[in-house]
């Protein structure tokens, strides 16, 4: 802080004395303010792009991608990442991943369209998900995309589409299985234990216009144990070995899906996410050592595809916001109202987000309840968070918000804010303009008889 700046007023606070050993630091905390993101001042971003504002660090995306890639590629010779569009499908974000070499993994016709518009070649799009219309299937077949079949009805649809086109489709099946974790995601794909998967494979192998190129599973989300992946990989390898034994057909790829945990702390978790989330290395070790323990011939080792989304992007996203007001609740707890709520920070329902002040403060902190600005009771960002006393207008940085927020956010009460990206050279680019009333009303139609009214 420069010497000229006026000392900031910080109101006094009273804290309950906790019993503990005496130490020379007193009750101070070691929280550090986050005044810059990738060397760009938070204050400057808010001045230019308003508050709240999402910030994405391209540097962090690339760094995370490369460390994931290193973790897998040093353990296994053939690895391919596919960017999970639903995690964050802002075009700029997708293209950073595509520049790094990621394919696209989409779960709807809308996402498929987005991938095509981003310039992803059809044969590098993995088409997942339980909803695929006939028209979408037709397009995917024509583009030679990898179609991951979710259920038998879809399989029959696809056979029909292929017969009409007289074109062979590249398909995989999604397999669900018991990997020893709860909940069991058996609503997607074909079950392994009850032979649904094997039946689907048999059907595909006996259909002329379908070529079984891969096997896919996605065992869950925010998996905190890497062992589950070892079990899943083993079951897919079993299928692949059996397919080779029965039809002498080497499977081209095994798609282990995503579900890797980020370092966010889940609500109700006793330990912070940083300490309990397995890193890429742990997941990679579990998956690759399992596949390598199977007797695939060197030249027939399946390509390992990974669709991890959350762990790739969460760290790269920040949400900048401003304190609207401080107040005290009836039970005496302090409360803080922010200018962002669960409407744009959807993950507040899942995580205890780390939130840092964006300016210098003293070492004294207090517990506060952090609310969003919505006139809705559910709009609570943190039930309890330890923060220094922040005045109205103070700025904060919410960490690790890159995944799902920019796709699951709601236009509810308020509109969605600007999203900016800080590039490798620390230049700030606007990658999604904030919505205006026109953005919303442009989609609305007014029946003529409702156009006029007069209030008495």
């Amino acid at each position, binding site marked *: 802080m420069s010497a000229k700046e006026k000392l900031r007023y910080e109101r006094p606070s009273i804290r309950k004395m906790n019993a503990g050993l005496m130490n020379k630091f007193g009750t101070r905390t070691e929280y550090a303010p986050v005044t810059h993101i990738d060397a760009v001042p938070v204050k400057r971003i808010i001045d230019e792009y308003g508050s709240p504002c999402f910030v994405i660090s391209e540097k962090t995306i690339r760094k995370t991608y490369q*460390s994931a890639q*290193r973790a897998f590629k*040093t353990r296994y*010779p053939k690895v391919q990442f596919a960017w999970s569009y639903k995690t964050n499908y802002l075009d700029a974000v997708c293209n950073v991943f595509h520049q790094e070499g990621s394919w696209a993994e989409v779960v709807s016709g809308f996402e498929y369209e987005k991938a095509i518009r981003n310039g992803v070649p059809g044969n590098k799009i993995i088409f997942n998900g339980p909803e695929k219309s006939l028209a979408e299937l037709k397009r995917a077949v024509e583009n030679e995309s990898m179609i991951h079949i979710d259920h038998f009805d879809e399989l029959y649809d696809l056979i029909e589409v292929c017969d009409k086109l007289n074109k062979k489709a590249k398909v995989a099946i999604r397999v669900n299985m018991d990997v020893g974790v709860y909940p069991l995601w058996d609503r997607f794909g074909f079950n392994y234990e009850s032979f649904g998967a094997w039946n689907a494979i048999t059907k595909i192998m006996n259909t002329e216009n379908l070529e079984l190129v891969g096997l896919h599973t996605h065992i869950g989300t925010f998996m905190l144990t890497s062992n589950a992946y070892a079990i899943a990989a083993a079951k897919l390898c079993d299928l692949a070995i059996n397919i080779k034994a029965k039809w002498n057909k080497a499977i081209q790829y095994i798609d282990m899906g995503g579900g890797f945990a980020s370092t966010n702390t889940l609500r109700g978790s006793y330990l912070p996410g940083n300490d309990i989330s397995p890193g890429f290395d742990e997941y990679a070790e579990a998956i690759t050592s399992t596949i390598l323990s199977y007797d695939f011939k060197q030249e027939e080792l399946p390509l390992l595809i990974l669709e991890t989304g959350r762990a790739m992007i969460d760290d790269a996203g920040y949400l900048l916001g401003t304190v609207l007001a401080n107040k005290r609740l009836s039970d005496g707890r302090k409360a803080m109202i922010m200018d962002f709520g669960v409407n744009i920070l959807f993950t507040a329902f899942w995580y205890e987000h780390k939130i840092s002040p964006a300016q210098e403060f003293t070492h004294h902190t207090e517990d506060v309840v952090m609310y969003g600005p919505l006139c809705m009771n559910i709009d609570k960002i943190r039930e309890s968070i330890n923060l220094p006393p922040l005045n109205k207008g103070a700025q904060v940085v919410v960490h690790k918000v890159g995944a799902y927020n920019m796709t699951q956010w709601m236009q509810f009460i308020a509109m969605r804010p600007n999203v900016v990206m800080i590039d490798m050279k620390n230049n700030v680019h606007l990658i999604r303009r904030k919505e205006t009333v026109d953005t919303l009303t442009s989609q609305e139609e007014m029946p003529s008889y409702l156009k006029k009214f007069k209030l008495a």
Partner: protein
Amino acid sequence: MRSLNSRINLALHFDGFLYSYSQIFFARSKWYGVLLILASCINPYIGISGLLAVLFTNIIANISSLNSIFIREGLYGFSAAMVGMGMGAFFEMNSFFFVLLPIVALLTLLLTLGFQGLFNKYHLPYLSFPFLFAFWIILLSTKYFTQLHPMISNNIIGYKDFINGFNNLALPEIIITFLRSLGSVFFQSNVLVGLIIAVGLFFYSRISFTLAIIGFGCAYVFYSIAGINTRDLNELFVGSNYIFMAIAIGGFFVIPSTFSYVIIVLLVPMVALLHYGMGDILLPFHLPAYTIAFTITTLLFLYLLKWRFAVNYLHPVVVQYSSPEKNLYHFLASSKNYQYSKYYPISLPFWSEWMVSQAHDGKITHLGDWSKAFDFIVLDDELKSYQHPGVSVDDFYCYNKPVLAPGDGYVATIADNIEDNIITDVNTKENWGNSIVINHGLGLYSQLSHLKKESFKVKVGDYVKRGDLIATCGNSGRSPEPHLHFQMQLTPQVGEKTYNYPIGSYIIRKEKNYELKTFDIPKEGELICNPEINVLLKNTFNLIPGSKLNWEWQGKKESWEVFTDSWNQLYIYCKENKTCAWFVNDGVVFRFTDFEGDKKSFLYHFYLGCYKVFLGYYMNLSVEENYALTFKNNLVVEYIQDLTAPFFQAVKADYQLKYMDADSLNYTTKMELESTSRSKVGAMVLKEIQCRISLDSNGFKEIIIKEGNKTTTAKAIWLKEL
């Protein structure tokens, strides 16, 4: 079948006929053969007699089922041609002459076989021994044959004066003598005959022609210095001794080089010594020395070359192309290929990208007898080898990462009982830690050390293939932090002295740029990985004996098939143009090693365009190579190049291949490559050819060739399977 055989025989005799003449001047050329026959026929008696002798010899050889390749190449016929010409020059053609001629032909053939048998034991050529002995026998014996009349003079030829008139041309004496010496090889000491031979020789081989002049010129100078009458050189075969010796040693049996040129200058006086010495020895028998001096000198010198322990210069010709130029250019090509072929390709023992933390002659531990080793580690994007906090082995990126077999072989030794060190601690007692040694055969072993305890996936005696997972990286032995030690050695003991050996092929990454290295030694600090092979490229260039390719180019069809020759070299053979292009494919790089045939064919352009193709696809990667003087330039440039090639290569030809586009890295169905071939003198570009090679899922699709302003397209024809 019968008609086919007779057709082959006809071709055999026709070729054998012409080659018999060109072989006299160490050439294998039909047009030169025709020219030489014409020269010999300037005196029709000599000409006809020579022709008949060759014909008889080759027919007898064929009936006797002798090696048809030798017959075709004129190796049996050339002595007969000279003997026959000699008969025609020395005796009158009467009926007895024609009775005797076939017998003489048979005698020459038998002597040829005899000398061939004798000298082949020593891998030496028989040169003109068959001619000398056959002709001496004739000279000695025929004086008893009263029916055979010596040729008194060739007055019978009407245009004698015209022919002899050439001998009086106003040319320097040395040139007249040179040409007459050449003519005397055909028993016609005549400038016109010599001129035809000399001009033909120049067009056949610039190097032979130069050598002939140097050999003769030196002899002329030496004669003057030694006080021998230079007119001696005009006599039958005297001058040709020097000419033959110069061509034989300067460029035919030895790869032409500065050394070979120097040596012929030094050998000229020796030929003179032998000539006059042998002449006096043979005098009591009334035998002329003829080419005995050349024959003895050449044989003895070639014999000397074979006794050398090291061949650093004066390389003997191994595959005889019967042309000093071709011998030289193929030698340059093959000596470049040899540097690749002498090593067993060793791969890097890991997946993905690692960094060389210590290379050969490293300053830390790669010292003395153990200096030719590598240490490898894994780095992150900030070039750190560990993640925070870096206090345990698990924090290090390379720890517990798969270690692969660097080549096929048997597991010779495994040491697996040493615990990993804690970080910063070093176990100097069990220096190598857990190690594995693989026997690659042929006395070559590789050792991998500091592995993780109980991580071995193989046991002693197992056969491992290149790229098989054998263990994981650890921190055992003299290893302060996890790393992989890799060395080549000559025994199966752990900790044996290192052996300097290159890595077969690897990719260096610098930022976003990739560089391919073949048979090279990685340097400290380089980020390297094994080349990733692209399936489409691999399949496209997987040309094995029996593979067929058909092309349509400039309205003509070319059908190619892959064969192996007797040296087990693969080559593409074009039926239409009878053209061959030899290649090697080691699974990482496809490269042409040699070319022979029609340089107007599409195969030649294909040879240029796909001269060296790395079978992996890396955006922005470029492969560079130099052509070994097979690049076609215009005739004048080529002739100048021929003249200077034994000393230095004035004309250089470069090749560059760029990987332009591919639709997918893992399942490629379309790919574009672009190669540029350029010949230049210094910085001046003489000629440039660009080839754009398109591949689709079948393999080759089309090749667009841009040469100057002309663009042509060759399309691959894939016959639909029934």
